[in-house]
């Protein structure tokens, strides 16, 4: 990330300037397509140089697709693929006479791809304006101009008493911490509770906080990573939209422990309801004295700003997220410097996943010991997981770490609907391996899943039924990988394109060349996107070698 641009942005931010991305998003919302005039305006208002603004405008999905009077966004996430093998995309394209990323000649309609809308429980999903509709007949409703908001199943708990998803939010964790704990003591509690990051990497949150707390900086920031980009996952969506106070409380606690006075939540533009829900919660919390210059009457000041992204999977990576938050291109930066040393506006910053932060109030309220006992295995706390539409009872569930995957899929979620059998699962997003039905008894925890080439990731579970074409799945995943590569590191930028080309071609894939390419991606890539994309391909090679067309 350009240190100079970050400094320029910091200076303009202090003067109240918007980010370039905010101005560009507003321009697209206003008139459907960016002009050079919009870019100049964004440069003038944000302080970012014109060239940099142009760079931003060519990066994000939301800024690239031209918008017609009706702007239709079709979800091409993994759950939608599992539901229709992308038939819904073809139907829309044919019926609208409009290719993905195009606008009809008369400007009446435009079609864009989006990954993913977080309606995996009712796939396939389509969005028009701010309304997301989903389900088997969604395409017909879109074509009839009769879309309606899809229903979302309420979250359920597999625990004796719900831990994270407790109803009635009372901010007890924050009250207790401010009244009885010093920031150092709170940090110590979080460290002892061994809260692991829920975003996928599983890094201890307390350690991250400690780095930021110990770093030098005029100010420090807490950033909630709400860019739940993993297709097949809608856990953070639920938390941000249905439990926003929990996130805000977790952020305030992090701010208290780290010595930060401001927090930012980056939400996804694919989740149009997240930002309003959080902003409403912020307003309520401010009025109640829970956020602001004097939190709960103490001399701890903390406030939160909600910023919406613009369509990019890699922005879920923490350095790319910070770039996006500052209105820059959402590309990954090499570490060091780590965000804890030089993050938002060049200042020490904690970046935590939404679910991770939502665990903090529980830790503050219940203490490290009780939090540690919530799950029987080595991992503390509970995990939210979610299932796709193929299951009988899709939705978000709170579960203990260490439960067997079979128990989750067959017990909790009721197995697949319509008597279908599970052929394989993809757990934890597109960078997770594919778990074949034969390995369903693997315990659902970080290390157990890693041992079979999979990962817990963020906890999204997408089931593929017996009808799934595994080569089509590989092609689908690699297309996603290549499309979403931020373009920074060479192995990922070129390698994922090449891998996709190998699978999309109407010929056998040369195994030796493929494996050499996968190794280059795994060992050479800058971030988990490039190094992780080979994982599902490796699983498929291992478990479904005959279905891939490998020579």
């Amino acid at each position, binding site marked *: 990330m350009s240190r100079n641009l970050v400094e*320029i942005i910091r200076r303009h931010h202090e003067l109240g300037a918007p980010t370039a991305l905010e101005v560009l998003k507003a321009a697209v919302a206003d008139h459907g397509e960016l002009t050079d005039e919009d870019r100049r305006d964004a440069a003038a208002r944000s302080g970012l140089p014109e060239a940099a603004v142009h760079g931003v405008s060519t990066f994000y999905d939301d800024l690239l697709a031209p918008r017609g009077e009706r702007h239709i966004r079709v979800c091409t996430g993994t759950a939608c693929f599992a539901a229709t093998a992308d038939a819904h995309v073809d139907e829309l394209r044919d019926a609208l006479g409009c290719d993905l990323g195009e606008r009809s000649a008369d400007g009446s309609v435009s079609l864009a791809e989006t990954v993913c809308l977080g309606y995996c429980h009712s796939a396939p999903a389509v969005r028009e304006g701010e309304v997301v509709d989903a389900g088997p007949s969604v395409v017909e409703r879109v074509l009839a101009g009769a879309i309606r908001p899809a229903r979302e199943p309420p979250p359920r708990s597999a625990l004796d008493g719900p831990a994270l998803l407790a109803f009635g939010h009372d901010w007890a964790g924050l009250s207790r911490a401010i009244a009885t704990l010093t920031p150092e003591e709170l940090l110590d509690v979080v460290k002892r509770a061994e809260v692991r990051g829920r975003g996928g990497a599983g890094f201890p949150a307390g350690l991250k906080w400690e780095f930021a707390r110990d770093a030098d900086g005029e100010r420090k920031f807490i950033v909630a990573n709400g860019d739940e980009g993993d297709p097949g996952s809608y856990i953070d969506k639920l938390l941000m939209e249905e439990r926003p106070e929990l996130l805000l409380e977790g952020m305030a606690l992090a701010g208290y422990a780290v010595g930060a006075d401001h927090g930012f939540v980056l939400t996804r533009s694919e989740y149009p309801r997240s930002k309003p829900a959080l902003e409403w919660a912020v307003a309520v919390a401010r009025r109640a004295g829970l956020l602001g210059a004097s939190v709960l009457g103490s001399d701890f000041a903390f406030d939160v700003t909600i910023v919406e992204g613009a369509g990019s999977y890699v922005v879920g990576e923490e350095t790319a997220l910070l770039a996006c938050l500052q209105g820059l291109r959402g590309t990954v930066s090499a570490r060091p410097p780590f965000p804890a040393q030089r993050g938002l506006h060049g200042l020490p910053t904690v970046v935590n996943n939404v679910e991770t932060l939502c665990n903090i109030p529980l830790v503050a309220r219940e203490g490290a010991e009780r939090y540690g006992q919530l799950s029987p295995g080595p991992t503390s706390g509970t995990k939210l997981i979610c299932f796709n539409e193929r299951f009988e009872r899709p939705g978000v569930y709170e579960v203990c770490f260490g439960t067997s995957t079979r128990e989750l899929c067959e017990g909790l979620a009721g197995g697949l609907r319509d008597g279908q059998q599970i052929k394989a699962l993809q757990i934890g997003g597109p960078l997770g391996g594919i778990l074949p039905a034969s390995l369903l008894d693997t315990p659902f925890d970080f290390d157990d899943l890693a041992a079979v080439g999979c990962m817990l990731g963020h906890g999204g579970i997408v089931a593929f039924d017996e009808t799934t074409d595994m080569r089509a799945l590989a092609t689908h995943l690699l297309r996603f990988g290549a499309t979403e590569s931020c373009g920074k590191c060479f192995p990922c930028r070129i390698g994922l394109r090449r891998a996709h080309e190998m699978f999309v071609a109407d010929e056998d894939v040369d195994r030796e060349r493929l494996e050499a390419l996968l190794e280059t991606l795994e060992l050479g890539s800058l971030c988990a996107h490039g190094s992780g994309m080979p994982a599902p391909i490796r699983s498929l090679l291992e478990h479904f070698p005959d279905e891939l067309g490998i020579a």
Partner: protein
Amino acid sequence: MDRDLTTTCGYCGVGCRLEAHASDGKVITIAPALDGPANKGHTCLKGRFAHQFSRHRERLDSPLIRDGDGELRRASWEEAIALIVSELTRIRDADGPDAIAGLASSRATNEDCYVMQRMMRAAIGTHNIDNCSRVCHSPTSWALRKSFGLSGATGSFDDIEAADAAILIGANPTEAHPVAGARIKQATLRGLKLVTIDPRRIELADYGVLHLSPRPGTNAAVMLGLAHVVARDGLVDQPFLAARTEGYDETRALLEDYTPADVQRISGVPAADLQRAAHIYAEAGEASVMWGLGVTEHRYGSEVVRLICNLALMCGKVGRRGSALLPLRGQNNVQGSSDMGALPDTFTGYQSVADESVARRFEERWGVSMKRERGLKIPEMFSAAVAGDLKAMYIFGEDVAQTDPDTTHVIAALESLELLVVQDIFENETTRYADVVLPASSFLEKGGTFTNAERRIQLVAPAIDPPGDARTDFDILTTISAALGHDMGFQTPADAMDEIAALTPDWAGVSHERIGRGGLQWPVAADGTDSPILYEDAFELPGGRALLAALPYKPPGSEVSDAFPVILVTGRRLEHYNAGTMTRRTHNLDLVGSEWLEIHPDDAERLWIEDGSLVSVRSAHGRIELHAHVTARIEPGHVFTAFHFPEVRTNLLIGPSADVNTSCPEYKVVAVDVRPVSEKPRRTPAIAAAG
């Protein structure tokens, strides 16, 4: 044949080290040297690209002699030299050596300037030698010597990154010194707190923490005001003042009259901004001051430089890494040409011609006897010519008819001469009045050294040979000197440098070999130790003490009146260099092909001037026409233009007003009247509805 070598840029005073690649007598590419101390692997479009002028078809490739019919014709070197020698001898015999004057060039090498002044002093016998720093930084040179002792920057460009804060006054480095400008810009983004002071909102103002926009000609009031605040608010470094300076009490008493409110009245700078600027500078751990011609080219420019020195002394910010005074020198060797004694009152290293022991040392070495009285400065030369006292001039590498002020007067002077010899690389405005024109060489075609704005002596090496019959300046000057009966005995510029080292205590350890790739910053001790930072322990004045100067603000020589209600400020553009002799013969012309007048939207509105329309600019001294550019970068009441295009002849507008101590012209303040040329504006301002 290919040639790869490292040399030093011949454009501005930053002194970029360049890697040149030439093939078949043509420069193919130029790239910055990664180890260049001033440029650190960077350079600007002039240094990197603007080299095609070296093989431009208009390059002088043969001596020219003016015929009876008034036309210049090609001539042989023998003929040209014979004519010069016979004419100079005739005039010297008839009117004495002081009827002859020479101008050395701040574009040429140290060795060229050295042999030029030696030729004037030893072969002809006059101290009438000056150089074009007279019209740019002579006030800086004079003031630094008065205040601190030595005539050069107190530190280095590396102080830019080492400073916590800096004041940049009267300079626009991102255009005029692009590599220094880039370094300053980068430093501001890394935390350097920059205060810019300029009538125009220069680009760096956008990166600084504060911009002050004083009325042109009121810099002294601003500097006095800053010093007032420093004294008033207890920001003075008392131990430093007590131990290392003299003259504070008198200065302190004078400062009483320059409260921020007083200064606001004089300069228009808001009192609060002035106070903030003073605190930023004084409270920084290390802070530097950088300035350019916006300080010097004024009636009291030399006094403003002394006031800058005062401020630095009061705050104890001299003589440390990060606390430097850095004049941004305009030309590649403006420092060196003066260092080399191309001045009417000093030999090399600013050794006075009036100093008996110094003069004897030179007389012994050169085998001649010389006067102890100084010679004429440039403006005095022109006046003497018009008066009929000066009969001959030898002008080397300066287009005085284009760049000097009061152009009408300069031309009258040139026309009055019996002999005008011009040694240059192109025909120019001045060669129109020349009797003999000698084809010289550019910086790409010769060896020697340049001294950059941080006193760094750096090697220059020839990438290509001079075109046709053109010769190196060193060759031309030593040949003519010998023909005049004074053979200097130098084979190469390195020989000249050895003599300079022998005669100049501050250059005692300098030799081409020692300069090497990294250069040497003078003073250089006999053992080769150089001086990146001056005055770490003592100033070079009696008792080792710096001198503060109690100098009040005085109004500029040119002030607005009913007839001339607007102030014209002149300056430079990135793409061009001075008179444009070189850059206008490159593709830089393709980037910027004409001059324009910057005018504030309010003034434009009032004067019915539209962006792009043709306007006339009239001063008490002349009138020019050019196109207007409406921009808020300039304050209302001021207009700005550059002087790179001879067809615009900006300097016709400049009068005889000059710095009181050094005669440096007041280029920066001219009262003018601006009007649209077209009688009927295309746009008629709306008439307010009646009632």
